[in-house]
């Protein structure tokens, strides 16, 4: 498995990285954790002229609080996200979903930003970031701009990141006190999700005050289950309420068919798994 020849650049700041991308032109590829890009290069499914490796850009790593948001550097590894105290306290959904990614080796190499920018609809971190109403901060030659998650994911493997732009950080509003669950359904432990459901709820005074549900692999982009969320508002967290709400999980989805699952089975799974995710999140 030998990749085609490419030039390699390893900048140490965001500014240098953006410049390197611009210099390299359209055929450049950004290397984050490499857990998707390297296999693709080795199988020669991609042959970029230049690979811009962000591994030395230390300012892109780590988690901090800023203006009531969590700010997670795009190069923060899955392992770091899983272990991070701030993420576990204020965005537990993201920590729980990240725990289910592949295996320990991959979680030590792969990064949050890399997963989001790769935008594989079967990736487990897109739906949680969408459900948590995260925002992506992109850096380009004209400076920085912020794109909300529901505009960031455009299609299979396609995002709002422009050819000369980098995803540098992810801003997630604090969901302090929300309970959460990520229900992942896959064939073997290391496989991608057939369907995944990211659910987080805020229960106040015995009622579901707020609910956010995102679906993995139920279309070309992650899908927000607005119908489910609305059905839960104000409901008592009971099995019946959860089940009724979960019946709306297929709304707005357009899943594909592949070797593991046809579209109709995915829609069925989405309902079953949404019910289970909510039941666990709401402590039913």
């Amino acid at each position, binding site marked *: 498995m030998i990749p085609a020849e490419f030039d390699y650049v390893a900048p140490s700041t965001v500014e240098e990285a953006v410049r390197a991308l611009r210099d390299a032109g359209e055929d450049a590829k950004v290397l984050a954790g490499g857990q998707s890009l390297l296999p693709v290069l080795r199988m020669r499914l991609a042959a970029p002229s230049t690979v811009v490796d962000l591994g030395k850009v230390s300012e892109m790593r780590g988690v901090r609080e800023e203006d009531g948001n969590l700010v997670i550097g795009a190069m923060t590894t899955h392992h770091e996200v899983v272990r991070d105290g701030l993420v576990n306290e204020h965005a537990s959904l993201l920590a729980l979903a990240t725990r289910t990614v592949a295996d320990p080796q991959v979680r030590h190499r792969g990064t949050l930003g890399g997963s989001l920018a790769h935008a594989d609809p079967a990736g487990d971190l897109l739906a949680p970031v969408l459900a948590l109403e995260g925002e992506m901060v992109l850096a380009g030659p004209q400076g920085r701009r912020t794109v909300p998650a529901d505009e960031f994911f455009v299609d299979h493997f396609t995002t709002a990141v422009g050819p000369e732009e980098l995803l540098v950080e992810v801003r997630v509003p604090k969901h302090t006190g929300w309970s959460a669950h990520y229900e992942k*359904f896959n064939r073997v432990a290391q496989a991608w999700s057939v369907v995944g459901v990211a659910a987080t709820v805020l229960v106040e005074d015995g009622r579901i005050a707020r609910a956010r549900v995102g679906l993995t692999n139920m279309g070309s982009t992650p899908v927000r289950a607005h119908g489910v969320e609305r059905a839960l508002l104000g409901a008592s967290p009971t099995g019946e309420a959860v089940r009724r709400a979960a019946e709306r999980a297929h709304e707005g989805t357009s899943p594909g068919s592949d070797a593991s699952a046809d579209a109709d089975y995915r829609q069925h799974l989405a309902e079953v798994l949404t019910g289970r995710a909510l039941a666990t999140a709401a402590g039913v």
Partner: protein
Amino acid sequence: MTATPVSPSEPEIGRARRRKEDARLVTGRTRWTDNMSLPGMVHLAVLRSPVAHARISAIDTTEARRMPGVHEVVTGADLAERQGSMPCAWPVTPDMKTPYAPALAVEEVHFAGEAVAMVAARSAAEARDALDAIDVDYEDREVVLDVEAAARDDSPLVHEELGTNRSATWTFDSAEAGTGGDVERALRDAEVRLDRTFRQQRLIPAFMEPRSVLVDPTGEQYTVWSSTQVPHILRTMIAMTLGVGEHKVRVIAPDVGGGFGGKLQVTPEEMLTFLMAERLGRPVKWTESRSETMVSAHHGRDQVQRLSLAARADGTVTGLKVDLLADMGAYLRLVTPGIPILGALMFNAIYKFDSYRFTCTNVFTTKTPTDAYRGAGRPEATFAIERMMDELAAELDMDPLEVRRRNWINHDEFPFDTVAGLTYDSGDYEAATDRAVEMFGYQQLRDEQLRRRQRGDTVQLGIGVSTFTEMCGLAPSRVLGSLSYGAGGWEHSQVRVLPTGKVEVVTGTSPHGQGHVTAWSQLVADRLGVPFEDVEVLHGDTQSSPRGLDTYGSRSLAVGGVAAVRASDRVIDKARSIAAHLLECSEQDLDFSAGRFSVRGTDRGMALTEVALAAFTAHDLPEGVEPNLDAEVSHDPENFSFPHGTHLCAAEVDTETGRVRIRSYVCVDDVGTVVNPLVVEGQVHGGLAQGIAQALYEEAVHDEDGTLTTATLADYLVPSAVDLPEFHTDRTETDATSNPLGVKGVGEAGTIASTPAVVNAVVDAIRHYGVTDVRMPCSPQRVWRALSGARASSATAAESGGGLGSVDPDQPFPTGGDR
């Protein structure tokens, strides 16, 4: 199980010795073929067809030749006169149709992945880069993918010149053979008749070390290193295929990282590396990528099995008719056509029904060739009969264990001549089953199953039974001859006692993960009474172990291990004559024990070490005795060995998602005398993993163009330890009577037994919804669809066990389970 400290007086056989091989392997001091590097060596890369069936109208290599580092670019046309045709050693019938099988396609490609050109370059990267510069024009021809359609007369042809896609039809009929009755009569007279069709999906052996070949043409002999299970066969086949003198070829199988039958092959790439080395006069190495393994190394299984079973209302089976279609893929490789035929001897399993007929039609398709994969014919047979026994139990509303008890050979009926013409030497199916039932908690699980059904739980519980036997220790040469196999089944060993008393054991078996070095050391240490550490086992090099038939079919211990023991006995005989001479007594007065000859009734004697030194100095040897303490044996076994066992699986099925979870797995195997319990346990665990993988996870899938869509390990689902249950294993020991050690094979038992146990459990969990089958692998979606179909048609579905009626043979999956 853990290795236990041992005292020197205990026999080696039966000790849980840690493997001698492992310290080196786990610390990376390994000698894989790809680790080798020779002066002047160049790297070979192979261009493969992306299409399944096409004429090659043009190949342009001009640009590739100009690429940096490139030494040579070769196409099939360049080799047409030199390369011969890849060998098939098993012409199963006299009229078998065998297509021309060039190592490098000349005019036409017949599967996606077939080699069409090769590049030798200074580095592996430059060779790989140059492949992209070769331009091939393909003129598409019709693909032939479905084995049932391919077998019909109106199918497009894979090989035009053969005039048919049917390679051969092989039949066994117990009435004609005189081993039993007429199956048609049994079916006519049956009180219960069951007709079922099962699909053995195509699997990929998925050995850990990809294949690699290095050929050095610069010495007096060509030296070939290959990641192969069969160095001896490879040497002979290189000579026969390429017309090179056999004495001019030395083959070495260094450390080999797994095979599972996938390296029981003589590959096009071995021939191509040889031919490139011959052409360039310098060492050439080829190492494949995993992507190449998936499409070009042979696949396994892939059969359609139609079965009709006749029984009486009390559960006694009276006859079985088997009609197979076996997918050969595009070519007949080394033993491709014989693999399904090996199953012919095993469909009757442990049962003593009277009438049996087996027909197998071998069919070409435009897919990767199939060949041996762990079990090779016996897993397919065992799956079919064990599924049928559970179906019969359901039909009669009997316990599946009771149906088996009613039909199996009792322990006091051995030796037993089977309806398939074999003689089972020994077995105790009652003992293994009783032990398994006890460990499993059979009745408690049945009770829980009933409670869950009554409550209508989301998660239902099923119990699957598999009481299996298999034939291994390939094999008595005369039996292989009767099956038209192209070689014998003997094995060779030489035992040499060195002047210092250390021992070298040369074996013709070729371990690639089995632990022969450890086990053979134990066998010979016991026999000669020398320390385990003093025995060295030499293997896998046709120069140091010149004779042998290699490792496959769970043959190594029962044939090769026995050869080493018999050679040890000859060494003792020779040493006895020398010792008697030196001690001035008669041979009859000498006792040999713990490595020492002693003169009976005296305190005089001498150690084997002393005899060895005396043989070496040769100062005073008896008349006619040659100055060495070596002996060799070519051992041809008198019969197969027949391990057996009872496997019980409890599976939970989530009826909302279709997901299957194995709750509990118990197996009690009878592999006869155990030389090393640790090694046996390892073989059983690995075997179970692969058998369960067939039941639940693995499948090679092609799209409508014939492209393999499960061509990476991200798509081809090999389970890891996390995906598998804890295995609860135990053994009974009923010695084989066909060899002096009482041993049987163990390498394939777990794979053969476990697949039907799991599928039976899945079906049992949801049979009350009307499901009678789920096609393998029992993926969540397939299980869910089977349930959905069954629920949708529940108004018309017959209750299971509701009568003695037959299932409509035209609708083998009335509940929509086939998906």
